[in-house]
């Protein structure tokens, strides 16, 4: 038999078998049958010795071509099969992608500290530093140094909780003003957030324990206009630019001129509702130019320096900002309340 014919036979046989092979096992069988140690191709190589020398190169070439073709075809199909297999496997790994995500438990921030931090950041951006002071104060820092003499009707403005004849719980954060002025030379630009106490019964709008944020600016050319500018920025930032502020004369013993600061009602926008007692405005803080007596008592010459101060209730601002209608919620610590603040 002619070796060339044999090559063709092998070729045909391979193609026939290959056409029916559709999985890795059949392909492997074919590979062994044709390319294995005792495979058909190998055998053909063995017959190379029995052919004339001049035909050897041509046949050798043919044989190599055959081997390569078989290999290529087997490999190509194997690849397709594997591709298919992979695809199928991925298909099987399909999941319900809408099942809930795995959530790591995260804590919440109390609304009071949320608002305090926000206020602090607003003032820090305007160049303020944060000052602190004790919650237990004495008569001097809480009253006298703030120009609130004994037996003055101004004492009626706040009911004080006393510890004994010497000490009391600060009724406002204003003592921090005094403490700061005593130990700092102007320029001074501080805020002092903190806890304060009053002899008030606990109800929906009053609390014996609440929080204030005090501000104090002292320098050589501080004006009432500076007070207005500073406060209006804070109001814009915390309530939004659409709210207007107004300043009206008021009285605080430690400031003169004094001003009450109102913001246009966040509910009715000035039309009048129950929140603003039909005035269209909400009182949010007291403010004014630091009283010259207060400056000089703390060792600052009122002829050379002037300043402004302001004080607001953090609790009140928190209630207004989030529309909370009962101050007691701020100390009840009900989880369903706490988790609303993010």
């Amino acid at each position, binding site marked *: 038999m002619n070796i060339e014919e044999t090559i063709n036979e092998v070729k045909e046989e391979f193609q026939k078998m290959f056409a029916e092979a559709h999985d890795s096992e059949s392909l492997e069988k074919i590979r062994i049958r044709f390319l294995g140690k005792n495979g058909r191709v190998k055998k053909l190589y063995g017959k190379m010795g029995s052919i004339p020398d001049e035909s050897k190169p041509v046949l050798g070439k043919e044989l190599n071509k055959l081997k390569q073709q078989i290999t290529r075809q087997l490999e190509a199909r194997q690849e397709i099969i594997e591709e298919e297999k992979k695809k199928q496997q991925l298909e099987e790994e399909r999941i319900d992608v809408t099942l809930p995500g795995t959530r790591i438990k995260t804590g919440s921030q109390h609304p009071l500290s949320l608002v305090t931090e926000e206020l602090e950041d607003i003032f820090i951006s305007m160049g303020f530093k944060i000052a602190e002071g004790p919650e237990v104060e004495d008569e001097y820092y809480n009253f006298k140094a703030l120009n609130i003499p004994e037996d003055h009707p101004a004492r009626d403005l706040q009911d004080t909780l006393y*510890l004994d004849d010497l000490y009391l719980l600060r009724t406002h954060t204003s003592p921090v003003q005094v403490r700061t002025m005593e130990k700092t030379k102007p320029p001074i630009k501080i805020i002092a957030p903190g806890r304060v106490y009053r002899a008030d019964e606990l109800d929906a709008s009053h609390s014996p324990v609440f929080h204030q944020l005090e501000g104090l600016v002292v320098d050589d050319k501080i004006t009432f206009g500076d007070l207005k500018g500073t406060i209006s920025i804070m109001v814009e930032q915390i309530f939004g630019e659409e709210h207007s502020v107004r300043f009206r004369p008021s009285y605080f013993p430690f400031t003169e001129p004094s001003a009450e600061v109102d913001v246009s009602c966040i509910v009715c926008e000035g039309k009048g509702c129950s929140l603003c007692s039909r005035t269209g405005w909400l009182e949010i803080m007291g403010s004014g130019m630091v009283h*010259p007596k207060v400056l000089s008592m703390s060792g600052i010459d009122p002829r050379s320096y002037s300043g402004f101060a302001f004080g607001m209730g953090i609790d009140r601002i928190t209630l207004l900002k989030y529309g909370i209608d009962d101050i007691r919620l701020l100390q009840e610590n009900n989880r369903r309340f706490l988790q609303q603040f993010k």
Partner: protein
Amino acid sequence: MQISYNWLNSYIDIPCEPEELKYFLTMAGLEVEEMSYQGEGLDKIITGEVIGIKDHGNADNLKVCQVDCGEEERQIVCGAPNIAENLRVAVALPGTRLPGGLKIEETELRGIKSSGMICSADELGLKEERQSGIMELPEEIEAGELLVEALLLNDYVYKLDLTPNYARCLGHLGVAREIRGLSDNNLEINWPDLLPEDNGKAYQEASTEVEIQDPELCQRYTCRLIEDVEIKPSPLWLQRRLEAAGIRPINNIVDITNYVMLEYNQPLHAFDYDKINGRKIIIRRANSDERLITLDDEKRQLTPEVLVIADREKPVGLAGVMGGANTEVTKSTNRVLLEAASFDAVNIRRTAKKYALSSESSHRFERKIDITAVAEASRRACYLLERYAGGKITEKMVDCYPEPYEKKKLQLEPDRVNNLLGVEIAGEEMIDMLTGLGFEANMKEASRIAVSIPGFRRDVEGEADLVEEIARVYGYNNIPYTRPASAEPGGRTPEQKASLKINRILRGQGLEEVKNFSLRPEEDDLTDYLEDYYKNYLAVTDSKSSSSREDSFEDNFKDSIVKLKNPLSQAFSRMRISLLPGLIEVLSLNSRKQVKDMSTYETGRVFASQGKRNRPAETDKIGLASMGAAHDTWNLSAPDYFYLKGAAENLLDKLEIEAWSWQRTKLDIFHPGRAAELKFKDKRVGVLGELHPDIIEEFKLPVRTSAAELDKELIYQAAGYEKISYQQIPRFPSISRDLALLIAEDIPARDVIEAAEEASADILISTEIFDFYQGEQIPEGQKSLALNMVFQDHNKTLKEEEVEKQVDNIIEVLEDEFQAKIRGK
């Protein structure tokens, strides 16, 4: 203070409508708390005169009335017992609605047509309580008039919330002055009519003698005799004005004294002259054996601190606060002695406080009245007493005024005013502003205004007060918005930043922030549990730490609690000494509200006494608490304990605190076998533990609820995160070895780790326990621990033999020290 629009309008032509006046006053510093219309809902009610009455016929208690309603006569059926012919009545015509909401219709009552309704005072909202009959109107009223006009109810009332420096506005004339000063219109005040002045010979010398024994407490005292007074109701207009101001009319004498007080802000008092002994008034301090029954029928024990008005034998009034019942004006009074005086503000305030007796009079004296207007107010009252009480005045006024008021003089520099306000107002303009408010102001030199302060502005003490006046007239809202320059950037101190960081870390651990009151009940169910905690952990003095700790704490726990002297209620009567009780209550509250798991933290201040007359210590603490945690890492049924311990350890780690350790401790508040203390070297920083089962039961908490309290200041001091410097990432591989050992169960895991670390050279870079087991297959009294150790050398690749050598070392030490058995070996 309540003011009436119509009353005010009688002194000054109010430049705006009632609604605008509310805004005007508020922006002038006289905050209007409430504004109301006196005739609310009554605008359509008219007056009528009953001109004929017939019986109904079908109903005994009904009458058929013919009522003259001005333009027409109407037939109205009425069932009131006091209906009578010629009576002036209030009529609601068909189609009107009463203040209560009832709509009146043309109707038939038992077959007889009734076109309207005759009203009672309560139906009109003029009286609160139900009236037995219809309202009887004064005879002088003409039929057909609108009721609000006939009864002078077409008026607006403003309730002012006046700050102490606006005392001058406690009278209508003071408010009129404000309007004059702040309005752009050139307004003049129509001053009220007065009794003519005493000069001339119209009046005889006074027969009453006045002696001021304490001129410090009474700077001026006037009195005047008025004879032949006839006690009767005041005229309607006067009653109406008092009512508008919130004061109940009594009789003409009392009403007139109140009326003048509401005009001039000068409290007046009328004594029944015939009850005063010996024609003499003495203003003196009381004796401690004296008593006085005041007009409110209370018997007052007097003391020498109290100033009284007395006759020759007895006190007849608490000076400036309230008159005495013994000289009260009654129906039979014939002669009155009218007092107008000025008393010391502080003394009046103390007396009013002492007797818890704040009166219209004391309220005004406490805030200083206009001492220069005392006589004028008296003459005003005399004028009214002559007209409306038939009084005859033949004597002069006694005016005891030892040191007449001298107008205070102040200087104002326009430049300084402009610099303080951030405006540019000319000096001349400032003079106009001050003059309009009633000050005398003149340009002295080019840059100085001389201002003299009138008696009604004794609140003005210095330059700053005048600056406020200029700002008020200029308008606060006309001052431009500017901002102060900042020489330095703003920001937080490192400690304040650390505080935020601590909060963030704790929230990141899944803890929710809570805020508890620092006021607590005197005794609560947790107090007793805190005693040993206080002694061993709270009352620790450390001279090296912050200044608040230099003083000494009380030895006795109960003495260490800071109590309030004047608590409002038992519930808030002392300061908290620890955050733990508050946190326990928070979990308890939520547990009762069906919250199953919750973990919380609080950063806050606690207080402890440092002895009488010493300032209490204030310390910032971090409190943690957890209930219902799910993951029980060591299968020791202690999920909350180890959750909090992990949170605390993460906190210490993130703050880069070195050399911390936990040791077993025992405290009443915790489970005896489940509590640890946190130490930095030998400093006690805090405690952590499972709550004592008794507490868990009492507070209805889930089992295993745990809590911790750490000292925030000590933690901040030990924090090193700000000094972190980068360490090169190791270039050589590490080798990891696990070791399982059996040891006696009472050996703390911490000791095992420490021993391992000590036994090995520097190349042991971490030792962790990754498994813990007790139970089956482990001998009684033993536990199994699995240790993971990581070895690494920063300079070279470690050889297996080196590591083996180290591991053998460690094994040897563990066997020696703890009789540990190495498993699988």
